[in-house]
């Protein structure tokens, strides 16, 4: 038997071809053939998305503060509530304030480079970091486990044969780059991870600076250096990354000692250096502040304030660098976190796991402003109350895929596993799709529900401008109680009558969404 036959005789050899180093293991379990279902996209532009993951669950209520709810907030979180006078104002949005350490974001917002999306979450909030992160990264429903990541599915849609035939002339570079220890599940494609990771920041710095990680001057050092060298050669993208990085010798100033800024500086360098990589992911951990979120003497300083300063300073420096480097037109960034915090603080100056929170998208091409409204803080105190969800996080993904990566709407459903309504986060012109102007709808009452409080019967009157219309009832922990309307409607006014069969006394949120328009009504059941 010849050698080749021996190997062939083994039955099914798992042929991985040019699989990438740092590939994530969940890859290997998944074996569906979505790549065959999806055709390649034609309209690939040179737009880049930078995802910033805030691990731990960011306290949205102390990030973007609803000024009109300030007195109710003081019922819930007096010990961590930042004095009103210290909050930062946002041009044109008198009812909203920013955390005092976020001067960088304030500047960017006032320069029309930031879009906040209020109340982002998903039905049936899961309060586990791990599970909720999975949900955000995979884009799955709360009760489903999806082995692929939403960005992995998008990249698979653009590059269906990857890694066969890659790199090539059209795409000589990694499709996605994760700065961090291992490739995030967000990049997991149907079979292969669609991104590489720069597995160790120091190694990476050494690589782009052309210095070797020091090894001891003995036989072990000799063997380690040898294996590392071969590993480096095996990483087919090392050379292109190094080449790209070496082209950029001048960058704007980044704050020192800022872990996120260090990562974003690399990203800017690689984009400017010519990588065609579509997506970068960086992260900042430490947001899970159950205790000691704020300083006991001053709620405007402390752990959370430092984290927000790190975030804000890094993003501002990154944006300035993008402009300095002349690439700001084609880069946007997005923050995401697995959940917000509970409305009520706890006695140890921290907050427990909550539900919806604001997301931030920044860049020259975002629609500056705030999508959605200030969250409603119930006036009756209950330590378990959570914020109502205004937008599904997958609506944000859908909007970015459609308006930034120009994915057509029918493919969106395949990538995101469902149909999600889109939001006017990005300026028009990146693709040809139309942008809705929220301001035209300002002041319209889309939905009303009465009586409130209700006992046996609830009447919901709503208007729709036509198209997909959705009305859902949530409890204050974010659990989906019922879906009243979920269909395409002709423009007009409608009435829906609800006879609550079993719900208990307490506060509920009724959520209306007609494409980008959303409205939440707080209801009280006295049944």
């Amino acid at each position: 038997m010849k050698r080749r036959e021996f190997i062939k005789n083994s039955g099914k050899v798992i042929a991985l071809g040019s699989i990438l180093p740092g590939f994530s293991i969940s890859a290997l379990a998944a074996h569906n053939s979505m790549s065959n279902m999806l055709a390649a996209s034609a309209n690939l532009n040179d737009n880049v998305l930078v995802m910033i993951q805030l691990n731990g669950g960011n306290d949205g209520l102390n990030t973007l503060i609803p000024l009109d709810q300030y007195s109710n907030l003081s019922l819930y979180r007096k010990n961590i509530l930042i004095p009103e006078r210290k909050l930062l104002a946002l041009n044109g949005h008198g009812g909203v304030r920013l955390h005092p350490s976020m001067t960088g974001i304030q500047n960017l917002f006032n320069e029309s480079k930031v879009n906040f999306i209020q109340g982002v979450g998903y039905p049936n909030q899961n309060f586990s970091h791990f599970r909720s992160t999975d949900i955000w990264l995979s884009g799955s429903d709360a009760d489903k486990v999806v082995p692929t990541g939403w960005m992995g599915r998008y990249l698979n849609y653009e590059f269906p044969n990857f890694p066969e035939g890659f790199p090539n002339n059209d795409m000589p570079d990694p499709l996605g780059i994760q700065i961090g220890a291992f490739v995030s599940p967000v990049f997991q494609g149907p079979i292969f991870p669609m991104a590489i990771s720069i597995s160790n920041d120091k190694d990476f710095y050494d690589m782009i600076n052309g210095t070797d990680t020091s090894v001891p001057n003995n036989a072990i050092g000799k063997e380690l250096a040898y294996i590392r060298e071969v590993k480096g050669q095996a990483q087919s993208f090392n050379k292109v990354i190094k080449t790209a990085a070496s082209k950029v010798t001048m960058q704007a100033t980044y704050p020192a000692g800022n872990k996120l800024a260090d990562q974003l500086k690399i990203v800017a360098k690689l984009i400017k250096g010519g990588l065609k990589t579509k997506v970068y992911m960086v992260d900042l951990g430490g947001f899970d502040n159950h205790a000691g979120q704020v300083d006991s003497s001053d709620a405007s300083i402390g752990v959370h304030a430092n984290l927000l300063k790190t975030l804000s300073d890094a993003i501002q420096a990154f944006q300035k660098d993008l402009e300095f480097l002349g690439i700001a037109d084609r880069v946007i960034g997005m923050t995401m976190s697995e959940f917000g915090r509970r409305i009520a603080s706890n006695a140890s100056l921290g907050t427990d796991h909550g539900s919806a929170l604001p997301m931030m998208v920044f860049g020259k091409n975002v629609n500056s402003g705030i999508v959605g409204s200030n969250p409603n803080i119930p006036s009756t105190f209950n330590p378990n109350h959570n914020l109502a969800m205004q937008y599904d996080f997958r609506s944000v993904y859908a909007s970015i895929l459609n308006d930034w990566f120009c994915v057509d709407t029918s493919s969106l459903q395949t990538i995101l596993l469902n149909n999600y309504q889109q939001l006017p986060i990005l300026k028009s012109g990146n693709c040809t799709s139309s942008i809705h102007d929220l301001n035209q709808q300002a002041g319209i009452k889309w939905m009303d529900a009465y009586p409130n409080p209700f006992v046996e019967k609830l009447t919901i009157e709503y208007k729709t401008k036509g198209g997909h219309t959705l009305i859902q009832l949530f409890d204050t922990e974010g659990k989906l109680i019922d879906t009243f309307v979920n269909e395409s409607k002709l423009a007009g006014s409608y009435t829906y009558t609800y006879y609550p069969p079993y719900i208990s006394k307490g506060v509920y949120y009724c959520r209306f969404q007609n494409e980008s328009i959303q409205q939440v009504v707080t209801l009280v059941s006295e049944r």
Partner: protein
Amino acid sequence: MPIVSTKGLTAVSEVLDTKKAMYLLRRTLFGISRNDVAAFVGKNISDAVDELLIASPAPNPPLNNYNNSKPDANVAYGQTWVNAPFDQDLQGDRMFSFKSWLAGVMLTQNHSITEKMCLFFQNLLPIESDVVNDPRVLYRNYEMLRRNCLGNFKVMIKENTIDIAMLQYLNGDKNNKNAPDENYSRELQELFTLGKGPDSKYTEEDVKQAAKVLTGYQINRNTLTYFFNSALHDTSNKTFSSFYNNATITGKTGAQGEQELQELIDMIFQQQEVARHFCRKLYKFFVYYEIDAIIETNVILPLSQILVNNNWEIKPVLKALFMSEHFWDTENFGVHIKSPLDFMIGYMKEMDIALPSTTSYETYYRVLFEPAKYAALFRQEIYNPPSVSGWEAYYQLPLYHENWINTDTITRRNQISAFLLVGYNVSGFRLQADVIAYTKKFSTPSDPNLLIDEALSFLHTITATQPLKDSLKSILLFNQTQDYYWTDAWNAHINDPTNASKKNTVSGLLTAFYKYIFDMAEYQLY
């Protein structure tokens, strides 16, 4: 030039701690489980080495595992084929069985150096299954290696000369007085005994003369034994060069012609270079591949003297080497690159990977084939080195062991180590490292710092750096800063083991954690 130990063969007298036990066992076995380490910690080195040098009992022979797909008219399912009649149609299946079986012998070995020595001799006295493609013949060769690997080297070389696999491989069976074939005669001197060192000065004429001595040995394909055909033996006198002190082997007729072989072996083994060549080979296989003048003087020469003084018994040499302060110099810890078999078998043992029932022959052999297959993909196929010189990594200047690592093999090594973490099905059996069960065997799995320290000290030979520990911790802590993220996740699973979501969280983190450890260059060394 890297620093290598200058120490010699003075015996150490120490008790094995964990690090030393792991070092000794990894060098003498194919990988180790934590149970293996526990069994040796606290022993003194002399006792430990003695135990390792006891030959393990002969394994049961390889079996018919292939009957369900290819019925064997002569051998029932689950019975051995090693004595069955030749069957061309079943050659491939039996080869598959043989190599899977041998991987299984390595994987299930006890605390004995036997299998590592068999591989040493598979490399020193190689047979290519591409050439000798009857697995029954290979099995007999393996029996010969096994019988002698902890015995007498001189006896072994004689048995090797008339081994039917070797007779076929190096054309000994074609060597006769009418058409001499010098193939085995040359390799006997150049590769198996004297080597090609500067003091090995046999001549071309010596090759021709020795070939004449070796005429007449043939293979009986029915009994699978050699026989001496005196009619084909060259009965002339064989005279050798001054290197052999102009020795003459007097030609003999009839059955007595076979006596010339012993005379030839005696003559060759009078050369001091034989013992030196053998000890250099041992040193490169068990310690490190670079031998400078100091090591030659302090280690190789005294070792070779031990071999000669003990009349070519191998065990005293191994004992002296494994007891020596040279072997135990910490400069030698972790300098060895894992061979593909070390890597595959070692991984499966280290990670406590479960095997199917030995009596589910089809599945059991198919699973055992996995390490054999991957070792082959990594360029070390069992019983199929690339040439009569063995595997390049054991001899090829200047890279030696580094030959195992290239851009293809390092990528594949990283792949399979990840594959086995997530698991895959082999003939319906889930081949997988159970990361949770594996982690439970560390002292305090809920403490991320202890878990990182213990996992690294077991899986990496080299002391871990702080950045590596930090990276691993960021994986376990889900990129948070407090240890309780891992502790809580772990305890949540332990307290509610049937909850799939809690289990998935822990297994996901651990899978990423171990994969990171396996992907480091450090994991390739031992």
